[in-house]
């Protein structure tokens, strides 16, 4: 059976309420088309994770999809603190999510350990700080301190993570799911490979032959992938290297809207529940802001020297 499908079908088939999701991205390539679909389909009680979360995670939290968050950091970048996240933690709106806090060293290594089939991994950070004193749903299994069996020095161990599903957005993939990415990676490769199944959203579906022209760019092999969805402009308002820039004015719009519960709901109605898919979202964007603004975000092409793998 083919893996190519719509994002709506992929989320319906492979994400169930209560799942543990890795959602890739680092301002670079957040899978926003899939995130909007999760909100539209009203998935609930999700556990979500990624290093350096941003507006995408804030939106899932504000929409009530999230129960637990394995976190390192969340903000709206240039636009300051994440509004929905703050409302959840400070006021319990729409409900108080549970947060387990790590760092941009420990979390990526926990995902790496998951991908490598290791039970846990030693990390050199976090020690001595209050990050050791706060334990949420992982309880005593958040970390363990041991004496190194080699030299007796204190060592922190953190557990491997194995998400149920990883959702990532990449530049291109073939129909079987070989997913190719370039540019800033964040923890995308390890998070995807740690998961039991992977949904690949991509700017374009290419042939297997095209993938083979530069195989070093593949970060997830086909056998881990359950769905491939073609979503051009799918990471907006984040960016995809080689395709389009960050949309700072839309980021400002989200910040202003998410200042209040009402504003946030109106934003969801307009941008998530209004359009039935990404195509309608793009149409709405062009209608509202004009084609020139849409076009202005698109990347210029700047090809490098073509690579050759011949022998």
């Amino acid at each position, binding site marked *: 059976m083919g893996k190519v499908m719509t994002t709506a079908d992929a989320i319906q088939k492979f994400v169930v309420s209560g799942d543990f999701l890795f959602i890739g991205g*680092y*301002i*670079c390539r957040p899978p926003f088309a899939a995130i909007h679909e999760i909100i539209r389909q009203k998935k609930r009680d999700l556990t979500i994770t990624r*290093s*350096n979360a941003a507006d995408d995670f804030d939106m899932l939290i504000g929409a009530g999809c999230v129960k637990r968050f394995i*976190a*390192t*950091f*969340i*903000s709206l*970048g*240039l636009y300051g*603190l*994440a509004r929905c*996240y*703050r409302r959840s*933690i*400070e006021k319990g709106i729409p409900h108080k999510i549970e947060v387990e*806090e*790590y*760092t*941009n*060293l*420990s979390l*990526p*290594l926990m995902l*790496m350990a998951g991908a490598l089939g290791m039970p846990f991994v030693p*990390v*050199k*950070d*976090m*020690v*001595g*700080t*209050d*990050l050791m004193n*706060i334990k949420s749903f992982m309880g005593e299994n958040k970390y363990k301190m041991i004496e190194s069996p080699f030299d007796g*020095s*204190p*060592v922190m161990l953190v557990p491997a993570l194995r998400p149920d599903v990883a959702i990532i957005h990449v530049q291109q993939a073939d129909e079987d799911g070989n997913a190719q990415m*370039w*540019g*800033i*990676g*964040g*923890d*995308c*490769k*390890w998070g995807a490979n740690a998961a039991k199944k992977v949904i690949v959203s991509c700017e374009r579906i290419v042939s297997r032959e095209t993938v083979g022209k530069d195989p070093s760019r593949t970060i997830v092999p086909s056998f881990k992938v359950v769905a491939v969805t073609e979503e051009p402009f799918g990471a907006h308002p984040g*960016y995809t*290297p080689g395709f389009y*820039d*960050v949309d*700072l004015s839309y980021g400002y719009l989200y910040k202003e809207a998410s200042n209040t519960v009402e504003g946030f709901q109106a934003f969801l109605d307009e941008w998530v529940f209004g359009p039935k898919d990404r195509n309608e979202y793009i149409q709405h964007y062009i209608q509202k802001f004009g084609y020139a603004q849409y076009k202005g975000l698109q990347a210029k092409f*700047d090809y490098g020297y073509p690579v050759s793998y011949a022998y």
Partner: protein
Amino acid sequence: MSNHPDDYIKAELMACCGAREIKDGDIVIVGTGFPAMSANIARYTHAPGAMLMQESGVFDARPTRPALSVGDPCLNPGAAMTGGLVDVIGMFLQGGWVDVGFLAGSQIDKYGNINTTVIGKYENPKSRLPGSGGANPIGSLAKRGLIIALHNIRTLTEKVDFITTPGYLEGPGARERWGLPPDTGPQVIITNKAVMRFDKQTKEAYLESYHPGTTVAEVVKLTPWKLKVSDDVFETEPPREEEIRVMREVIDPHRMIQIYEKRGYV
């Protein structure tokens, strides 16, 4: 002797103070704003061999506009390497290669411990902040931490509400007891009023220099702990002509650094 133009803003002076902490050949993890500015001033003046990386996975970026985040699109084209967090924070930082890291926070104490997690009680916060991100590993593992702060009695504090990122923790010997690498830790707190350096024995930040326009007495008054003053305390050297030229002509022609004035860095 360089000339010192007097039309600089405080943020530019702070960026220069950061730059002067960077040595030729240093490997520096930078964020946006001050850190990127400081590291680039150093590269274009006394430290052409300094090498920059961003935690998101970038090494030796060549941006043609100031990056607005550590994952900014402009960091990709021209970089010597784009990888991920496991590469930069794992292989390079935890691997022991990084000389300098920049840090900032909502609260900072005299040992350079930093809070970016929560104001108030963790379980019932007055204000929930973003969390560690890369700050804890940078503060734990970079050889020299440079802390940027607003100089007032809310940001500087006797005791932080939450230690997100380690400075010298409870004082001398604490980092070593926890197994943090030897010879790591914060070097200075650079504020809009002064440069405070950490004493090698007591690990407490003391006043090294006060910026033009302020006085030792004012800095002491704006510091909530009993601030020790160096016997050799001096007025901070203002930005040199060459530093100003590099900032305004090369690194930041649109002078985006001025947004720091709105954030209180005056």
